[in-house]
């Protein structure tokens, strides 16, 4: 173990700064580093030297807000992503929510919940937004100006639909054996391609996404 009292040479200061920056949980200022080194150690010089040493490597020393940290070279960011290979199964809740949004768009969260009979978890809408199946469409011109949801292009692509006109209606549901005669009168499958009158809504403005979606909007 090195002796703290013994003044380390330049190379040793550089090693120490390297180790400190590597192990730190966040960026360190020169003062943060100096505090952990023997008095008189030239931190600025060590940082400059390290910076040169890592220049062009897979890892670089970066300065953010007067603090220093290692981070992978910006051009290698693509390496840090991992493609998930297995197809994802939509949960029952997600599929049901998606179905309601598809048929009833534009629809508010409260309306989705009234059809489902249960409240939607934050994660469900998040997931649909994240997957690009659903988008925020506008704000209903009603008290509270609730956000409305609609399907996004990815939805049509995924289900092989040319447009919302092609979303199967009651006739197809019947043909698929999903609807039978016992269904109460008045059951109607709305035609989503016709209900989307823009007059009832204001557009969503930039940066005013509802709180629960802010992780995904703007990605």
């Amino acid at each position: 173990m090195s002796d703290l009292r013994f003044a380390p040479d330049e190379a040793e200061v550089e090693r120490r700064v390297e180790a400190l920056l590597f192990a730190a949980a966040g960026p360190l200022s020169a003062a943060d580093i100096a505090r952990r080194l023997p008095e008189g150690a030239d931190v600025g010089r060590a940082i400059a030297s390290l910076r040169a040493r890592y220049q062009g490597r897979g890892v670089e020393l970066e300065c953010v807000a007067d603090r220093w940290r290692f981070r992978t070279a910006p051009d290698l960011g693509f390496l840090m992503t991992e493609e998930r290979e297995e197809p994802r199964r939509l949960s029952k809740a997600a599929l049901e929510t998606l179905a309601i949004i598809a048929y009833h768009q534009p629809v508010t969260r409260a309306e989705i919940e009234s059809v489902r009979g249960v409240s939607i978890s934050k994660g469900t809408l998040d997931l649909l937004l994240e997957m690009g199946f659903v988008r925020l469409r506008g704000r209903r011109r009603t008290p509270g100006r609730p956000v409305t949801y609609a399907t996004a292009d990815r939805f049509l692509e995924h289900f092989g639909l040319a447009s919302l006109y092609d979303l199967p209606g009651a006739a197809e549901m019947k043909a698929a054996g999903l609807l039978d005669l016992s269904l109460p009168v008045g059951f109607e499958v709305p035609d989503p391609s016709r209900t989307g009158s823009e007059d009832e809504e204001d557009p969503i403005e930039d940066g005013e996404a509802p709180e629960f979606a802010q992780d995904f909007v703007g990605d």
Partner: protein
Amino acid sequence: MPEAFQPNLDFTAVEEVDARDAFVVDLEGYEGPLHVLLALARTQKVDLLKLSITKLAEQYLAFVHEARRRNFSLAADYLVMASWLAYLKSRLLLPRTEKGKADEPPAEVMAAALAFRLQKLEAMRKASEALMARPQLKRDVFTRGDPEATVIVPSDRIDASLYELMAAYVGQRRREQGRQYNPTQRIEAFALEEARDWLRDILPRLADWTPLVRVAPVRDEAEGPSQASFTASTLSASLELVKEGAMDVRQEKAFDEVWLKRRGRGLPLELTP
């Protein structure tokens, strides 16, 4: 400097430890007789394979003796080891020509086995020390403090067909229909207080067992509480009166008619099934 405060910095003192002082062996750290034996064997300062088992046995017996002298209660396995060692020692001291029991290995083999066992324990002791001397994570060496989280890009492939989407939709609309409940009128209940008053009023007329349905008020208007509510509240109120000792209630069996009757003054509470 007073003698009593002279710290003993002479490390050879440790080596001069004899069987008696071996009792300082930390019994908590050395959990069993084998650990004590190992500690004692180390005082012989020889390779464990060249250990004098006879001497070790003597050391151990002295240790046990010392423990008893100090009224230190030793676990049974320490005593089992003591008697085994006493026996082994006596056999080791016998002339070689005398044979032990037929089914028993020679004393030398048993002694060697003990030495080997101590050697094994010693090896593990040293191994654990060697492990602890290695640079340890988060004590001596540190990994990156702020790793860059790998971004998981979800697979593009999603398992969901149009049929599933339709089924999910229809399923929910069905459930929604089932949930539809539009109360057309306010439900009114026959209040418990009213039921009590009603019962008290007609109590004098309940000298004989009377079915509940004939005691409860009969609904005579379209408005107001339902007949079921009249009956239910009357039953509740009757139970309260039973508790007060004013009436008796009985039912022959489950779902059978409930019968009510006034209780005669001074009659004890009748416990009916």
